[in-house]
């Protein structure tokens, strides 16, 4: 069995917000482009984003991009690269206007302008008070972005290969030459020869047991890059969002608190007042998630259990139905509660990968900590690390990131395509993929993907979640090594060529295992606490030693860590108080 060969100047892997915005930019630049996506593009998890996209439009109160920048840098616990943050916050404004021009139905102010709401960590004038910066379309902003971009891609006749699962990157002598993909509907393997490849494959939240992330978010792009010797940056920083539906992890957006909702412990106290006196419930996520567990540990969970309440009852039916309709629907559907009258049990939920494939602000991938560019290879969106989120992302900043750097990827790819010819394909670039498929189809040993995956998710949640210590991380290291051994005995029961999701899930698990390993190893090495990475045995931030990004590579199954300094331009690191 060989492979079909296709040739495009630009290949975009991923049909979420980042991929589609890049594809749109490429199509406007008249570059021959194809989008490959394992899901139909409209199924991408960008569609799940609820609360909004941050941009200092100043439509409802004074605001400016510099304040947005300050909040982003402070929110990141000073680990974000400030040159990249500056670009993002400035371009956020034009990006939101462009979305409107493309047809996005934003909620409107009485004058007909784009409406804005408050969100965690976004403040007026360097921390004075919460500011209305999040541009929104009810509580389905991401859905609207995804639909609008997909619609415009149809208008621009972008070529889609839907339900193609990318398994490998063709990379030789530091030059990217294409990808190898598996066509889900019939099991055929395809080689896409390209001048440029963009990875926009989204997050990896399925590494954790309780998560807001879709089943499909298994970090494929990051894992493929890692296996091709590309380092991953800042993998120890994984955001656990404070408000997931208890036990299910389904997200209840920060927009709930942006609209005035508050958190209450088992005694009914608004406990965030004690931890963040100025902005209270709108403190950044890393802080709120920790505070929830501090309360739980102090015996202040609801009924002595490991959850607290989100209280929306004082907002009134009108605000809830008009501004948070989907969230109200989730609460009714999954919990049988009425958010207008009932308190909602919530628990922190694994949400967002701050780390990922290292890229610069033209979305070019960096091959090492020295900044060597991998020619023709680009990354944008949640799978990339620019780094604009540092150790903790602010709400509404991912949608900004995926679009600003998605478009920048498209534009830099177009430039590269004009200046460069196709680099030749190596001989039989599909061979490794074919071998992996064959191995999965024939391997016997009785291990089930679902069982190994669940064990991984449990150890990550328990040992590499909100609180970490060298002991818990060592436990996770041991567990992951053991699970990797069990993976060698994985047995796929579906042998068919047609829509073989059994085999796909095994491939995805393989990706999660590699990513979990580098995550835990990077977390073990970082003996400080910063943003989402909280080490109980090293509870202080240590700027002297750790004001740097980690770069993890895997060789012969072992993680190797290197570091790169943080870019600081305007804002000197300070203690983070809210």
């Amino acid at each position, binding site marked *: 069995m060989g492979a079909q060969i296709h040739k495009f100047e630009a290949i975009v892997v991923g049909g979420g917000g980042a991929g589609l915005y890049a594809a749109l930019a490429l199509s406007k630049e008249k570059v021959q482009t194809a989008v490959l996506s394992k899901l*139909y593009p*409209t199924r991408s*998890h960008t569609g*799940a984003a609820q609360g909004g996209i941050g941009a200092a439009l100043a439509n409802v109160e004074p605001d400016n991009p510099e304040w947005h920048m300050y909040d982003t840098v402070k929110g990141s616990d000073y680990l974000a690269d400030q040159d990249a943050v500056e670009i993002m916050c400035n371009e956020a404004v034009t990006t939101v206007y462009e979305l409107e021009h493309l047809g996005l139905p934003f909620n409107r102010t009485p004058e007909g*302008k784009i409406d804005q709401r408050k969100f965690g960590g976004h403040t007026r004038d360097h921390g004075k008070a919460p500011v209305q910066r999040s541009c929104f379309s009810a509580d389905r902003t991401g859905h609207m972005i995804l639909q609008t971009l997909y619609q*415009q891609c149809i208008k621009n006749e972008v070529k889609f290969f839907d339900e193609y699962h990318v398994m490998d990157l063709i990379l030789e002598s530091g030059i990217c030459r294409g990808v190898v993909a598996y066509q889900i509907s019939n099991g055929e393997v395809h080689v896409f020869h390209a001048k440029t490849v963009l990875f926009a494959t989204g997050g990896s939240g399925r590494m954790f047991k309780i998560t807001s992330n879709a089943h*499909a978010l298994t970090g494929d792009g990051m894992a493929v890059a890692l296996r091709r010797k590309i380092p991953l940056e800042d993998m120890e920083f994984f955001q656990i969002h404070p408000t997931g539906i208890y036990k299910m992890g389904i997200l209840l957006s920060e927009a709930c608190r942006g609209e005035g909702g508050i958190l209450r412990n088992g005694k009914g106290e608004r406990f965030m007042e004690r931890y963040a006196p100025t902005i209270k419930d709108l403190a950044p996520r890393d802080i709120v998630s920790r505070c929830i567990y501090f309360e739980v540990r102090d015996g202040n969970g609801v009924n002595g259990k490991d959850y607290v309440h989100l209280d929306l009852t004082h907002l009134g039916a009108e605000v809830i139905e008009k501004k948070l309709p989907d969230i109200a629907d989730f609460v009714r559907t999954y919990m049988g509660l009425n958010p207008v009258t009932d308190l909602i049990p919530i628990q922190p939920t694994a949400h967002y990968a701050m780390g990922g494939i290292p890229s610069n602000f033209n979305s070019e991938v960096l091959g090492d900590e020295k900044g060597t560019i991998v020619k023709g290879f680009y990354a944008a969106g949640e799978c990339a690390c620019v780094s604009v989120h540092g150790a903790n992302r602010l709400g509404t900043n991912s949608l900004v990131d995926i679009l600003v750097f998605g478009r920048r990827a498209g534009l830099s790819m177009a430039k590269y395509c004009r200046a460069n010819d196709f680099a030749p394909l190596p001989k039989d670039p599909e061979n490794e993929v074919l071998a992996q498929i064959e191995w999965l189809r024939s391997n016997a040993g009785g291990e089930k993907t679902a069982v190994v995956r669940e064990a991984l998710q449990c150890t990550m949640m328990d040992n590499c979640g909100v609180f970490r210590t060298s002991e818990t991380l060592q436990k996770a290291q041991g567990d992951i090594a053991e699970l990797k051994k069990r993976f060698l005995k994985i047995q796929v029961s579906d042998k*068919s060529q047609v*829509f073989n999701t059994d085999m796909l899930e095994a491939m995805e698990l393989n990706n999660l295992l590699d990513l979990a390993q580098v995550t835990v190893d990077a977390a073990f090495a970082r003996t400080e606490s910063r943003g989402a990475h909280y080490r109980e045995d090293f509870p202080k931030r240590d700027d002297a030693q750790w004001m740097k990004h980690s770069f993890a590579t895997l060789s012969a199954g072992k993680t190797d860590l290197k570091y790169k300094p943080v870019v600081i331009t305007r804002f000197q690191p300070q203690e983070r108080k809210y």
Partner: protein
Amino acid sequence: MKVELKIQRFDPVKDQEPHFETYAVDCEPTDRVLDALLQVKGLMDGTLTLRKSCAHGVCGSDGMRINGRNRLACKELIQSQEQPIVVEPMKGFKIVKDLVVDMEPFFEKFRAVKPYLINEDPPPAKERLQSEKQREKFEDATKCILCACCTTSCPTFWADSEFLGPAALVAAQRFIFDSRDQAKEERLDIVGEKEGAWKCRTIFNCTDACPRDIEVTKAIGEIKKEELFRKL
């Protein structure tokens, strides 16, 4: 609790015809039907095939017939189903395998109504203004996640696969009523044709099936009215 699932299976390589198989699983009453299906797949029979992604009703992957009605498996709780829970693929599209159907014809119809904002004026420096009232005219339709639950529950569509179907008509409504759009006439031409809005016989199956609570039949009615008025 013990749950019995009766799932329609079809493997195109081995089977001539679809058949049912029954599985017993142990679930929480508050689990989703999707969780039960994944339990079967993960622990009992890895060959069971379905699409899924978000697991909370926003991506549109897992439309299927559950106890005879089109639903998203991730939005139905076990406790509100009668047992055995009968699960079948959506009707009207070719079955690829088990619960997976060929969605290409569905997206083809979606594309046919020009489902994108058309406005060739140079954009202003900031946003185009639009009042809340103007936006509310098409807001309902913007909720669509293209799950196909409506189209595959429509008797008119079952009888005539050329019919554009409710989902494509909802997409058309979304742009026909957007104050910023300039291609209303083109779209009304498309939905005014013989396989368009006038084929709909107002049976309301689609509205009942929509997991996003879109008033599908009403949206189609609005298109019909608009099309009628322009002829007067």
